[in-house]
Each structure stands twice: as C-alpha cells, then as structure tokens.
C-alpha cells in the first residue's frame, strides 16, 4: 500500500467569529491509500466534519478559512488549485456523502434529474447515456424498480432509500475517494447494516478509497482498515482498527472505548470520562485532554504533546508514550522493585 492518493499535512482550518478565532482543525495530518477505508472518530465538536469539508473546500467562508497546511490529492496540492480544477475534482474524483439524507437531496428535482446532473457535468455524455448509467447506479446500490424511482421525488423515498440514492450519486463518476460524513447516523440499525454492507461491497468491487467520519466505534470496527481518533481539533491517536480497539494507548481513546455499553458483555458499571469536551480556542496551553485525564501530570499542563510515533504507523499524542518519559517510568518501577 504505497500509493497514497490523499495526503493531508498539518491542516489548520480556523473560524473567525465575533468571539474571536476558533481553531476547529488544528494541525491535522492524515493519509489515505488507494482502496483503503480510513475512519475518523471523535465526539461532536472535535473537528472531524470540518476536516472533511476542508478536503472538498466546502468550509463556509466567511467565517471559516484554511489558514495552514496542505492537502495533496495524488501529486497536486488542492489548496493551490484553481476554482475550476476543484470543480472538476469535486463530485468526480473525490465525492462526498452527508449525514442527513433528508436535506442533502433537492426536494424540487426528481432522483433521475439529480443523478444525471452529476454525470453530465463531469462525463461528457448525452442525456440518454446518462439516463442509462443512472439506472445502472440505482441498481448497483440495491434500489428495487430503479426505472420508476428515477421519476420519483426525494420525499417519496424512505431515509434508507434516500441515503442509497446519495451513495449512487456520489459513486456515479467512479470517484477515487468517497468521503462519508456520518452516513448512517440518521438511520435505524437494520438500515444502517444494509448501508454499511453496500459501502463495503463498493469498496471491494470498485476499489474506491473511503474516508468515513463517524462517532460510532461499532461502525468503525465493522468497516475500517485504519482509524484516526480526533479530540479538540487534533489527531490524538492513529493506528489499525484492531490495534486501536484492542490496545488503545491514549487515555482519551481508552476512556471512549470503556464508556460504550457493550452488547456482548455482562453487566458492569459503565466507565465515564469526567467533564466535557473543551471548546477549541487560540493559545491553549498543554495537552487538550489534561483536565479530563486521570494520568495528567505537571508536564501536561505546561507543554503540548506532539504525536509520538510508536512504530508500525501507530501514533499517539500523549507524554506517557514519550520514550524519555517511558524510560523514567520503567526506571522508577525497577527501583521500587529492587
């Protein structure tokens, strides 16, 4: 997996509001390889959606502005690309599914109309061919009686069907990357299972890379190869899905996993992280998780931890994983042992 198709380095997206500058995304770096499914998890306000909108350059401006970093798609920096080039890429090579299938389709146009639009803009084809391809796409995403649905309006479809239509639209131009921002959050579990199944199928069949943004670690375990955990605008941990879920290293990831009620485990008291997610603001001192962390020590309050590499593409933003500190800890342990 050497072919990186999306590489974000120290992205900073800030919002300029009446209350001052808010660093919603503060130095996020991530890489997506061809055909890979990468998950970004975090709670509301951690900057995961803003990261995805930044890639598509859909951050509302003003108040939002990308103030630093690069976003490389293949070898091209999207932040330097012309408006026209971005339009070409958007919906064609990188496409996006949004959380609310109810509001992301235009209620005034038929499903067929909206599907054809994407195709006719990006693939120089005539209406008839676009029609044919649209029906093909609807069948691919498992919509029964596709020909009839082409003439339906969004309100005539259920939530799950609408999300399928959204996926059909975003997959119509065979994109290299699909960014899915909470695609199943508004859906019921049985419908969610259908949609996740469909996304897995598309990933296998068309080798499309997926960047999945979610708050549900269950969904991550289901579909992702690699996971990035975000907290207050920063990446706090990165690794393969198995590593993150089985062997989390950052206290926030640990707490998050322990606070989910488990379906397959017998009763025990639920762990909860004290306090609430801090609002990102400029000039935050030290580690952003320090006020809620049970391992916080002096250094966490004075110095901001960097993302320490643990080898094997595993990263964690915590001083406990700093080599020098680990050495001190193990020395202390050895001393007390002897």
């Amino acid at each position, binding site marked *: 997996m050497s072919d990186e198709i999306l590489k974000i380095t120290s992205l900073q997206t800030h919002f300029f509001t009446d209350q001052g500058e808010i660093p919603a995304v503060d130095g996020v770096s991530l890489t997506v390889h061809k055909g890979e499914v990468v998950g970004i998890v975090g709670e*509301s306000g951690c900057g995961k959606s803003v990261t995805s909108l930044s890639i598509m350059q859909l951050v509302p401006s003003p108040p939002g502005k990308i103030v630093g970093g690069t976003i490389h798609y293949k070898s091209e920096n999207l932040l330097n690309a012309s408006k026209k080039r971005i339009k070409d890429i958007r919906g064609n090579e990188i496409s996006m599914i949004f959380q609310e299938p109810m509001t992301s389709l235009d209620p005034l146009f038929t499903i067929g109309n909206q599907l054809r639009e994407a195709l006719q803009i990006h693939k120089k084809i005539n209406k008839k061919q676009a029609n044919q391809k649209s029906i093909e796409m609807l069948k691919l995403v498992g919509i029964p009686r596709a020909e009839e649905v082409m003439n339906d309006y969004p309100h005539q479809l259920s939530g*799950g069907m609408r999300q399928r239509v959204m996926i059909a639209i975003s997959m119509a131009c065979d994109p290299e990357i699909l960014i899915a921002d909470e695609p199943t959050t508004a859906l019921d579990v*049985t419908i969610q299972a259908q949609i996740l199944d469909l996304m897995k199928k598309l990933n296998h069949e068309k080798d499309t890379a997926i960047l999945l943004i979610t708050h549900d670690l269950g969904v991550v375990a289901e579909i992702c190869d690699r996971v990035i955990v975000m907290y207050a605008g920063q990446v706090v941990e990165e690794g393969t899905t198995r590593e993150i879920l089985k062997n989390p290293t950052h206290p926030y990831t640990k707490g998050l996993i322990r606070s989910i009620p488990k379906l397959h485990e017998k009763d025990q008291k639920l762990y909860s992280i004290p306090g609430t997610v801090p609002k990102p603001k400029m000039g935050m001192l030290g580690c952003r998780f320090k006020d809620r962390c049970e391992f916080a020590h002096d250094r966490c309050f004075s110095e901001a931890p960097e993302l320490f590499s643990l080898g094997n593409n595993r990263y964690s933003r915590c001083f406990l994983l700093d080599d020098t500190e680990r050495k001190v800890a193990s020395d202390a342990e050895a001393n007390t042992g002897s």
Partner: protein
Amino acid sequence: MQRPILEVSHLKKYFDVRGGIFGKKVGEVKAVDDVSFTVHEGEILGIVGESGCGKSTTGKTILRLIEPTEGEIKFEGQDITSLNYEAMRKLRRDMQIIFQDPYASLNPRHTVEKIISEPLLIHGMNKQERKSRVRELLEVVGLSSYHASRYPHQFSGGQRQRIGIARALANHPKLIICDEPVSALDVSVQSQILNLMESLRDQFNLTYVFIAHDLSVVKHISDRVGVMYLGRLVELTDKDKLYDDPKHPYTKALLSAVPLPDPDVEKERIILEGDVPSPSNPPTGCAFHTRCPMAMDICKDIRPSFEQVEVNHFVACHLYSDPAQ
C-alpha cells in the same frame, strides 16, 4: 414478589389521517396497536424499536400526554384512563417524563431555577422551600447550586439533560418515563448520564420505563426489555434472556445488525430486506411477515398473539405458538 406499579393492557392509539377539502377522515395510523405489559416497582423496563415503531407514543400515552384510543393503564392499581383533568394533574406528581432533545425541552427564556421550580409551584410549595429544593436537586444531578440563575443556552447537552432530570425528580415521582434520554448525547457524556440515572434509581427507589433505539444502551440499563415493531410488542423478557436467546426473528435481526466495537467478535449478520412498512397501511397478519426470513403461509393471514413461551418470556410469533390451537 415485586408489586406491579404500572399495568398496561391492550393499549391502542390510532391517529386519524384527514384529507380532502372537507377534512374527512381518510385513514388511520396505527401508532400503537394492542400493547400490553407490566412494570414492577423499582424495575427498569427498556423498550426498543426502530423509528416509527410507536415506542415514544406508548410512553406519552402512559402519561396521557396523548389520549389513548383504547385500552387500560393502571398505575398502582388505579385505572387512570378515566380520570378527569384535575385528578390526572395530581397524579402526574408521581409520574414524570424526561424528553429526548435537551435543546428543545427546556424553555430558553426561563432560568434553570424557574424551570426546575415550575413543577414544585404547581403542586403548591412556598417560595423558600422551592428555592432550597432547587439547590438540592441541582446537587443531586451533579450540577452546582450557582447554576440556578443561568439560562439553558449556557449549558452543554449533557448538562441540559441533567436539568431535565432534575425537573423530573422535583416532586419525588415514583415512575419516570425516559423517552430517548441519551440519544442526542456524545458517547462520553452518554455514559455519565446513564450512570447518574442508575444511581438515582437506587437512591430514590425509582421505576423507569426506558425508551431508546440503541440496543446496547437499553441492555446496559434495563432489567427487562420489550421489542416493538410497527406499533406492536413482539418480544418481552429479561434482558439476558433477550440478548442470549432471542426468539422472534425481528429481535434476532435487530441484534445482529448492531455493529460492535470489537474486531474479534465474529457473528452471523441477518440483513433484512427493504424498509419498515408504513403504519397507516400495516401488512395483514403478522406485521413483520413482509421482511421475515422465516415467514410461513399462516403469517400472512393471522396475527400472532402475544404469548408466554417460557417463564417470563413473551413472544408474538407463529413459530412459537402452540400447534394444537
């Protein structure tokens, strides 16, 4: 043996669908269609189901915030469906509700003090007592007494839900209907609220009817769980039994659809075809037969009755009904 605090039998709520220029009745939405269950004192009964299955309507009809169409609701042995407005208002001191959306259920123009003291005022408490009771309640739900003078917008979602809980607790209720109390919250805040609700139950000997769509949450907090589909209760039993040995095909599919945050759990997933049918035109016979992988001929015509198939295990499915009948 535990005393039943709430007995619901054959509860029905049909909403009229009106149309045409004269607003004539053109149909009915059977939001709750013949639901029966009992809640014991000190117990947490979970009700799960997908959107539109009638779980919230069930919760609201129990308090008669929505008038039931038919059926009987007994609270502490007294049938409350026939009570008049005044008697019902008195009774609501013992029955409270916590709503789903902590952003919409608190009046943005009132201070927290006013919000929490409203139920105290209605049930006649003087100003001094009210003030101290509000302070006490805020401490109980994990907020501080200085929060009393603030407005709802100054709080985060989790804190607002705590205010909602404080308001419900104000008059020492016996039963609280919790209508999706944690579904609008983030995971780390959700676990705080769940732990708070559990400790309050132990502290004040409360009884909860806990309505939610998240099976893991319901499993965590409940003692018994009922599963609803299209206005009907399809299965009701102890939570361990339900999760270890589900009987109804819908329960099985629902449980298998939940994504687990553990890469090592291998499970067979049952993916249901299609969507939930519309409750204004539910399928004949068993409402689930259109999507059921085990559907038989009988399912199309005859609605299965809600029967006890094992001790404390109720199921509405022809697979388990007595063939002799």
